[in-house]
Structure formats: C-alpha cells, structure tokens
C-alpha cells in the first residue's frame, strides 16, 4: 500500500454536508470487477453536464481552472456516508486525491481510506470552513500560495497563510498509513493466536463449527 507521510497540495472545497458514496461514485459507474478504472466516474453526477458525452460541468469545483491538480478535498460533515463501496476511495485516489479534510466521515468510508493510503483528517467545522475561505481567497494569487501542507508524523495541517492546525488520528490507522503496511500480512503474524483462539472456541461454542449442509 502507498505510504502517506507528508503532502503538499492544492485543496478544493466541496463543503456540502452528507456527501454519500453514491455521489462520490454513482452505481452506474461501477461496471467492472476491478479496483481500477474508476477515476473518471468520480462525482460523475455532478462533474459532467451530460453523462454520456462526459462534458464537464463548469460550475463543479473540481472542474474550475483554479483547482486543477487538486489533491486535497475540503469536505462537509458526514463525508462518505452511505454505501460501503470501496470504489469511492479508489475513484478519489485515481483522480489524484491524497487526503480529505472534513468535520466527520462515514465510518466504513473512513476505514476504506486508511486501507488505501488516503488520509482522512478530522478537523472542526470552523477550521474546515476557514481553510476553504483561505483557499478561495487565494484564487487570484500564484498557485503555490494555495497549497495546504499536511504532516502526518506531527499530525499537523498548515493553511496557505501559515496557520497550523493539529489533528488526531488513532495510532493503528496512523501506523498503517505512515508505513504503507500490508495488513493481511501483518495479521498473519498472529496466526498462532488465531489458531489457539479457534481451538478453544470449538470447545466453547461448538455450534459455530458444526455448520449443517456444508
């Protein structure tokens, strides 16, 4: 898995609340049995005027010239709620988004981010709004001044004006992202414990193991 340590990027504000994973990638875009090829379907319902021709909707934030190359999304409360589809994260990543900053996230989406090297950052509504305001105010300036800096080691987001905001993340997800860990491989190192648990469990809950019809 791709590591996440530090990142500088253009942030695009999409502060709508309750943006669900159907909106991040509509079901009709999930045409293949794969983890790839979903970037084009990202926000398809909002991003294109016509779905078939893929004509960009000029009003949608990611289509605006000042946000070209955006790799950070500033989002509203409950971002990524709804369907568990991991495609939402794959689509964001393929599009180039490395981090989403929001006041809160859908729980399954949050976990899916961690497992794909995308950093979900929880900051208060006020701070996310402040970051958005700054980014919007910088539109007329040189591109670099629109950059937001993220440092996962220190747990800090630096706004374009240099103000810094600390964020919290649990040690588990933090480790996974910093080290780009293969979780399955890591868990398999606990095989002896899993074996022992299962052995004991067979005694304790035999009905779990006596599956009829199989």
């Amino acid at each position, binding site marked *: 898995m791709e590591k996440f340590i530090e990142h500088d990027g253009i942030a695009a504000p999409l502060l709508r609340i309750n943006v669900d994973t159907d909106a991040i990638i509509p*079901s009709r875009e999930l045409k293949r049995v794969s983890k790839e090829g979903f970037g084009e379907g990202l926000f398809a319902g909002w991003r294109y005027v016509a779905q078939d021709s893929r004509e960009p909707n000029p009003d949608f934030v990611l289509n605006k010239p000042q946000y070209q190359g955006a790799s950070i999304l500033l989002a509203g409360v*409950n971002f990524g709620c709804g369907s568990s589809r*991991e495609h939402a994260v794959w689509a964001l990543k393929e599009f180039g988004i490395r981090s989403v900053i929001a006041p809160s996230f859908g*729980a399954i989406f949050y*976990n899916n981010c961690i497992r794909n090297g995308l950093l979900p950052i929880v900051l208060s509504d006020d701070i996310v709004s402040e970051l958005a305001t700054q980014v919007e105010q910088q539109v007329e300036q040189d591109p670099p001044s629109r950059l937001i800096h993220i440092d996962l080691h220190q747990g800090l987001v630096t706004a374009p004006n240099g103000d810094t905001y600390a964020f919290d993340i*649990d040690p588990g997800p933090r480790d996974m992202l910093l080290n780009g860990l293969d979780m399955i491989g890591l868990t398999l190192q*606990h095989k002896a414990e899993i074996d022992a648990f299962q052995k004991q469990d067979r005694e304790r809950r035999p009905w779990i193991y006596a599956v009829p019809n199989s």
Partner: protein
Amino acid sequence: MPKTLFEKLWNQHVVASLEDGTDLIYIDRIFLHERMGTISLKSIEVEGRRIRNPEHVFATMDHIVDTFPGRNDETLMPSGKHFIQAMRQSAIHAGIQLFDLNDPRQGIVHVVSPEQGIALPGVTLVCPDSHTCTLGGLGALAWGIGSTEAEHALVTKTLRVSRPKIMRVRFDGGLSRGVYSKDMILHLIGTYSATGAAGYAIEFAGKAIGDLSIEARLTLCNMAVEFSAFTAIIAPDDKTIDYVKGRPFAPTGQAWDQAVAYWQGLTSDHDAVFDNEIVIDTADIDPMVTWGNSPQHAIPITGQVPNPSKAKDQNTRKSMVRALDYMDLKPGTAMTDLKIDAAFIGSCTNSRLSDLRIAAGILKGRKVTEGIKAICVPGSTQVKQAAEAEGLDRVFEQAGFEWRESGCSMCFFAGGESFGYQERVITSTNRNFESRQGPETRSHLASPATVAASAIAGRIADPREYLQ
C-alpha cells in the same frame, strides 16, 4: 464489572489486543454478494492467498441481477453479466456456498442470512455491504465493511477494529395503529440527525422493541447505518430463538441446546453503563416520510415540507435548499399533497413476508392510481414463494403492482433499470440520496403500508386512512 451486551460479545471475540490500540476480532461468518464480494475473491486469488474457513463463507446474487420473470445471466445493466459469472467462478474456486440465480435460497443478502440461519444470535458476521447492521435484529454482532477488509476477514478470519462507544436507544410504550418499525427508525434519525450515532454501536431496548417481530427488528436495525452507527443490536429473546429454530444452517441436536443456553445469557447486565442513552416514547411516533435527500429529512406524514430559514445553522440551511431544489418542493406544502409517479416495495429494509402482508392488506380490493408504476420485489426467493402460497402475488397484481423475482432491484440504480429522470417515488427502501434510484429520481422513504396507501391514492398518503 457489569457489561453491556455489545461489550460481552466483543470481549468474547477478541483474539488479541494489538499494539496499535485496535482489537483483533474473530469473525464467525462472512457473507458476500456479486458486486463487492467478487472483487475480494479475485484479489485473494491474484495474491495467491487462501480463505481460512471457506465453510463459514456464503455468497448470493442480489445486487446486479435483473428481477424480471425468466431472468438469466444477462442484465439490463451493461456488463452485469461479468459480475454474475465472475462470482460463480470465484465461489467454486474458493469452495464457498453460493446461492445462485436459480437457487431457491437466493435473495438479498441481509434477507437471506437470517432466513437461512447463517446469521445467528451472538455471532460476528461481516459483509462488504453497509446494511449488514440489519442482522443486529437477531442479536448478531454484524457490520458492513469495504472489500479490502473483506479480504482480510476471509484470509485471517479476523478484523482489526477499534471498539466503538455504546449507546442505548430505548423505545418505551406501544406503537400506534399504522406505525411500524420503519417509522421508529425514521423518527429516530429525523429527530437526532443522520450523524446522531457517529462513533457508537447502538443497543435497541425497551418495551416496544420486545413487542416487535423479528422481521420488524431487522427493519429497525437495517437503518442504523443511516444514523451513522457502527452497528445496532437487540438482545435475543424467546422470539429470536423461535425464529432461528429449524433454519437450514442453524445448529441442530446437541449443538442447538448448547447454543440456546448460550443465547439466553446474551443481555446487557441491568446495571451496565452506556456511554450515551436516548429514550423515545413510541406513542409519539406517527407514520413517517422523508421530504429531502438525507434520511434525516424525515417528518410525520401529516407534516409539511420544512422551511430552510428555520435551519439551525448555515450548512444545514444550504443542504435543505439544495434538497428542496432537487426534490422540486416548496416549503409549507403538505406531504400528502405530493403526487407520485411510482411506488416501490422491496429492499433489505422492507421486503420480508410480514411487509408484503401489511401492504397486501391495504391493496386488497383496491387499484393503484392509473399511470403509476408500482413494483413489488420480494426480498428473497423464499419470501416470494411463501407470499405466493398465501395468494399475496395475486393481491399485488390485481391492484396493479408488478410482481418480480427477488433482488436489490431498484433500491439502487446500477445502470440498468431505473425509475427515470425526476420521477417522484414513494419507496420502502433506506436511502433517498440524489440519483440513488435513477438519474435525478426523487425518492421518499416510508413504510410498506405508506407505500401501498400512496400507490392507491396517487399521492403520498397516510396509511391509517386505508387500514381495515
């Protein structure tokens, strides 16, 4: 130390507490479906890994399959066939039980798993689908995951999870006539918002919960994810044990007796401490319906489209304005004045036999308003057959409903069949998100009774006016 039911089940499944602060939780059962499960199985194959206990893994075809009579691998959804055939292939390769298209056990994953006795009280069960929380209605500790986590569960039989906080939601009192568990959950989310349970697992308790049938409990827990909960659970009782008994994959003989003895101990200790508690007087709940694009936009059916100027903050106001625009509504309009184009009874929320009986009770001897597309999709092939044995299919068809094969169908738009551009739909499903049921479709969530009544009236209607 007194413990909650959730803590007890959690603790019993902890294989190890890991250095990173998460717990390694043992997973008893895994359920897959053709849309997400296939990706996990393929990925395991490609990585050259092995499923640890394939006999504990099940799969069904529900998300992408068509629901027209006489269906086959071909789907209206372009490329749907790839998912169906890939699932079949991967399931054989992996050695897991698949309930294929023509299998009498086929159906929507969260309808099938209790029906077949795969979800049981006290088991941990995961599925790459957000509505896995449904199974809390049986007293299972079940939650939705992504497909990478599903791979982890398949290969290691465990998941790394941080324990959520625990909230009790108590429904005290009795339910009024025409009010169902769907209305209870819509009332809860409408009152406490779509993020009201973020960070929590919920235990539903109280007299009203004990009074609910198991099927109604499954409906209630189904929408816990719409409340942002990690999952929901209801302590198993005699009704639960009766429900499970004799199901195809439920334990038998001595194992059954051992299981029952264990299940009877699955309750929260009377002095257990919850991190949070909500108490609702069930008598206050009316039939509910949603007006907007979030389940939190739920109001009593006798209510009016709300005014955004009364919103509590700017972001809420903006989202309300956007929802009003999308739904083409004006503040102050009575919900029961809204004409509908379509009516849908189906989905893992409300497509079980008891739901179909309630709807049929209203439809019997009546006709759907002309021009309305009305569809009933039973939640499983078994539900469909049981309904047909009672003659419910004829009641639906005589009223003007289409009677379909089981599947997720138009609960969500997969690229095939949909309700169509800007059509207004009254629906027994769980999500009223933008374009969830088709491009710019306008969905109003409600109970099957309300859907049936509305189909007859041609507008959103109060089911109490139609109950015999």
